[in-house]
């Protein structure tokens, strides 16, 4: 077994377990987690460039059992990209949390590392059941992180979050079981071959819909997104950045992977419903966001609306659409986590996130104002930021398949997103400071990640000509599926 390929899962798991016994030395814990996450970032970038080489996706079999009988771990360039971005967000949030280190609860570092073990494991899982187990690891860690930081009445939010996620996991499990029962295979590559062959029946695709529904709950898509706005505002602000940037995106990753491998021939079946779902998600998310009066509620509803854009890209089943969604994922994770970190700073300064209690930040902290503008305009889709290119790609894909209604809706939603972002800007930055409020200075460990992420989102937008070829391979592999199958089953252990 090639340890390098298994390491994105093993490193956070090992560090998390070991750090459990370091309860009395916070320095060790902070240092070790930082090393783990930054190391993961570097490692994932290395894996990204390796997976783009002539050998294609990196594959290893756990325990040496040949595919498809063993557990396969696959890192193709899309997985490696997701690994890299999530590690980057993890390091930024950890750096940010260092500023509030007095308030960390027990075992915080181990839990965050276990969360990453689950997230990374989901990204590299090569078979459905491993995907299920890693989802569970991720979801359980998020439960404990959420519950540790509750205050009083917020426990109802936690209960809603737990119920919705457990429900989704159980549906996922049922779907996996039925797919195995009908096809005799769990390995994603093998399933992909099976689905493309003549023996496959419609029933496997129907069972796949159960999977898709479970992923839809996890990514907060249209009819099943209510758990997100109920629970995310109850998460402590900096941790919210981690949740917002990672958890729903693993659901999108699931949808992407299954669309690419399990539903390649189901375009006729899936395209219309997915287009409707994406349109409804975009619209309801942003309309709800525009009516909120609390910074973090606005941002939470925005997650829903942006997820709709990503599903639009997937729903088109074209190369442009898949490429658009890959770029959108990259752009959105960075921008969303950055916005949540900024919301954390705002809340730290004013003691509350309600829009009518904020004000005067443009004068007091101009750096924060600039750092807010970058991701806010990116989210709304203004050039030259990354959001503009992301939305352009996704809408172009929509126009390619002549889904004019959804494309137009996407443009309108962009406008309303701009409006809701400007609500936050006006309330927090542009309006005069409320009387009698003294603002604390922000420690540098909180400033650095925000500045870095804002610069990064600017760079991704301006540096698109250099980034595009790197992502092109991911998109081609996803739309094609053949290189994945060949890498896993072609005897390359």
């Amino acid at each position, binding site marked *: 077994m090639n340890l390098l390929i298994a390491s994105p899962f093993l490193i956070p798991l090992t560090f998390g377990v070991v750090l459990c016994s370091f309860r009395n030395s916070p320095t060790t814990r902070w240092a070790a987690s930082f090393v783990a996450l930054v190391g993961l970032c570097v490692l994932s970038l290395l894996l990204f460039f390796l997976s783009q080489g002539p050998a294609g996706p990196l594959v290893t079999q756990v325990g040496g059992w040949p595919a498809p009988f063993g557990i396969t771990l696959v890192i193709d360039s899309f997985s490696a990209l997701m690994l890299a971005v999530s590690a980057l967000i993890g390091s930024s949030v950890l750096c940010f949390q260092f500023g509030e280190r007095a308030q960390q609860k027990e075992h915080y570092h181990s839990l965050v590392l276990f969360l990453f073990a689950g997230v990374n494991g989901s990204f590299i899982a090569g078979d459905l*059941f491993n995907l299920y*187990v890693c989802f*569970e690891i991720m979801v*359980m860690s998020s*439960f*404990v992180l959420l*519950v540790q930081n509750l*205050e*009083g*009445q*917020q*426990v*109802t*939010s*936690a*209960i*809603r979050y*737990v*119920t919705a996620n*457990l*429900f989704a*996991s*159980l*549906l996922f*499990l*049922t779907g*996996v*079981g*039925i797919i*195995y*029962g*009908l096809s005799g295979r*769990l390995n994603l590559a093998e399933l992909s071959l099976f689905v493309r062959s003549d023996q496959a029946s419609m029933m496997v695709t129907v069972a796949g819909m159960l999977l898709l529904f479970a992923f839809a709950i996890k990514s907060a898509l249209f009819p099943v997104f209510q758990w997100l*706005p*109920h629970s995310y*505002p*109850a998460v*402590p602000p900096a941790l919210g950045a981690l949740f917002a940037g990672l958890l729903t995106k693993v659901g999108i990753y699931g949808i992407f992977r299954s669309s690419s491998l399990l539903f390649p021939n189901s375009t006729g079946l899936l395209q219309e419903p997915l287009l409707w779902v994406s349109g409804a998600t975009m619209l309801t998310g942003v309309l709800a966001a525009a009516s*909120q009066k*609390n910074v*973090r*509620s606005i941002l939470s509803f925005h997650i829903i609306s942006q997820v709709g854009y990503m599903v639009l890209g997937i729903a088109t089943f074209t190369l442009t659409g898949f490429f658009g969604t890959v770029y959108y994922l990259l752009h959105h994770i960075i921008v969303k986590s950055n916005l949540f970190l900024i919301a954390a700073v705002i*809340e730290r300064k004013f*003691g*509350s*996130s*309600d829009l009518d209690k904020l004000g005067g930040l443009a004068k007091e902290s101009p750096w924060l104002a600039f750092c807010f503008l970058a991701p806010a305009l990116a989210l709304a889709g203004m050039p030259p930021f990354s959001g503009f290119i992301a939305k352009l790609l996704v809408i172009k894909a929509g126009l390619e398949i002549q889904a004019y209604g959804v494309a137009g809706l996407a443009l309108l939603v962009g406008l309303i997103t701009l409006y809701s972002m400007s609500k936050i800007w006006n309330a927090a930055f542009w309006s005069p400071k409320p009387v009698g409020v003294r603002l604390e200075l922000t420690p540098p460990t909180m400033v650095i990640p925000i500045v870095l992420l804002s610069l990064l989102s600017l760079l991704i937008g301006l540096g698109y000509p250099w980034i595009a070829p790197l992502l092109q391979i991911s998109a081609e592999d996803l739309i094609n599926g053949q290189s994945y199958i060949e890498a896993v089953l072609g005897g390359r252990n």
Partner: protein
Amino acid sequence: MELLISIAAGVLFFTGFYLILQESLVRSILGILFLSNAANVTIFSFSGLVPGGAAFLGESHEMAANLSDPLIQALILTAIVIGFGFSLFFLVLALFAHSILGGDRISEGEYEPPHR
């Protein structure tokens, strides 16, 4: 046999869905437990359902005729253990909620972002 198992799974799913939607927290948790069992029974129904069929072959492959799918049983075991984990967590959360809310009901109320 398959008909019986399918009906059992259906009843479990039905009960689970009904219970999850209840106001009382304990019933909600029971609903999750029922759904977890329903999922396990559904998966089990794909394992061949041979009466007396063991999941291994024996030394001279004497049990090959009555083989039950061992992978299904492995999947169910893992799922049961994961179910232990989250049931335990949910029950402790319910205890915590009970001490705070002073009761069993998850009240709907107006949606209000919590003030920190």
